[in-house]
């Protein structure tokens, strides 16, 4: 699955869009690499690492998705202004 252009102006792949893709892709690397977090230490308030680390990633992935969302809006605005007037 690739990021699809919503406003079809300008190049499809831009540095901004690469950053968006990375934001969306990072959680997959972190979560599917189970070996990186399958351990009990260090514990946090008595909760083993395995559990609090994944819950931390709920927050991290949310921040990343928010970032992707904001960047996407920025990307779209930029393209609309470039073309002038209502986009699409």
């Amino acid at each position, binding site marked *: 699955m690739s990021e699809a252009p919503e406003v079809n102006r300008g190049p499809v792949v831009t540095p901004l869009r690469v950053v968006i893709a990375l934001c969306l892709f990072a959680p997959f690397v972190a979560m599917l690499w189970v070996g990186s977090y399958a351990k009990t230490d260090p*514990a946090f308030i*008595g909760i083993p690492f395995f559990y609090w680390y994944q*819950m931390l990633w709920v927050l991290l992935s949310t921040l990343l998705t928010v970032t992707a*969302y904001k960047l996407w809006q920025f990307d779209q605005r930029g393209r609309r202004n470039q073309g002038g007037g209502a986009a699409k």
Partner: protein
Amino acid sequence: MNDGVNGVALAVFIFFFLAVTVMGFLAARWRRADDEHSLDEWGLGGRSFGTWVTWFLLGGDLYTAYTFVAVPAAIYAAGAAGFFAVPYTILVYPLIFTFLPRLWSVSHKHGYVTTSDFVRGRFGSKGLSLAVAVTGILATMPYIALQLVGIQAVLDVMGVGGGEDTNWFVKDLPLLIAFGVLAAYTYSSGLRAPALIAFVKDTLIYIVIAVAIIYIPIKLGGFDDIFAKASDAFAQPNPATGAPRGALVPGDAGQWTYATLALGSALALFMYPHSITATLSSRSREVIRRNTTILPLYSLMLGLLALLGFMAIAAGVKVKNGQLAIPQLFEDMFPDWFAGVAFAAIGIGALVPAAIMSIAAANLFTRNIYKDFIKPDATPREETRVSKLVSLLVKVGALVFVLTMDKTVAINFQLLGGIWILQTFPALVGGLFTRWFHRWALLAGWAVGMVYGTVAAYGVASPTQKHFGGSSKEIPGIGEIGYIGLTAFLLNVVVTVVLTFVMKALKAPEGVDETSPSDYTADAGDPGVKVELPPATAGAGH
């Protein structure tokens, strides 16, 4: 367990249940449109929901009562392996960020109500659309049945529903009443009913989790004690297998299973008809993107909830049926009145998704079986009537399922349903981004995935079951144990790609694509995309 009825808890439960019943019927008047006799109105709430309603609706829809009972139950039974639900729900949101807005746009532009509508429009293939529709209905039915299992667990712990010796009618009467009420307001109010009730459900759930995660550890002496006790319990050998019962952290062998289950489930979630119904009811594509940034709050809650499984072990909850572990924990730990609130949260938590699922399955039947194959000239009013009736039938079917068959049958089918629904991914998500895939190749890939998944799941034995004993099996060629659904999905993709090359070489007819590239990016307010679709869209010639 059945040591008498917990009167206070039951009273609180009934209070909340009555409250949402009234709301369910009043919901018909909420944001009512001029013409309520169209499928857009009844089945998609007029496609009018904003960010917050959509958030509650999707949250209420995806995080079901069964989830609340089953995830901690899995932790209670085996430890770490059950926690895959958390990475699973983490991965869902970046994933849907990429494709769901496109589905929203094209569906609004063409008046699609179901995913099968889209598949038929995109690939010009009624056969492929039928395959997607049937898969959706098959996967949804056992899911509805499991919602009933969730309500049953709560009723059991409250002491209503009786013991083994009461006759079946008295035993099942509370469940029959609950479902009768649910069926009645879904029939009259459509998607508006679960949307409104979801507010109550989620508020209750958040309150219960917030209290549970602070109050119970204090009573049990902190997380250190809880995990120490759980660790001891997991080290005890399972009498059936002789192996330890579980582990706090997945071992090397379990890591593939953990990752493939998380990924496969994440890919599958938004293939379920009820997820799509809730998505398409939103007002604009921005609502969907914004929701991918706020829905993870539910994942956090799910993670906290999963920890309750450890608390149940530490609190010494002993149940034969793991599904009862969490309701029993609430009953043991909380004062009666608050246990009632917690039970109400689970009970209402079952009603919201059950309503949405039955609407989604009914829409699939009406649009992609009834209209496509039985009565092509059905008017929107007729469509709505058929959908309402089918939503009743679907629920009655689920009820019969739960009352007449063993619970494990529902669980087995739910497991299969997850594997099956994932096989519609290439047609749906593939179709959203490219028209390269050939329709016949997609159909063949789907069939191969379905057959492989079913056969493989049939062959999995567990200490208690000869077949359907689990959802993971050795991945051919890799040798690790992985989620069957994901293996079937990969096979499906390989077959689809190879056959697409073959079909193109043979110049097999491609079918007519009624969509155009700009349809996938259209937003509310653009030409041809009305914020509220007129009822005529359903009959506008596709």
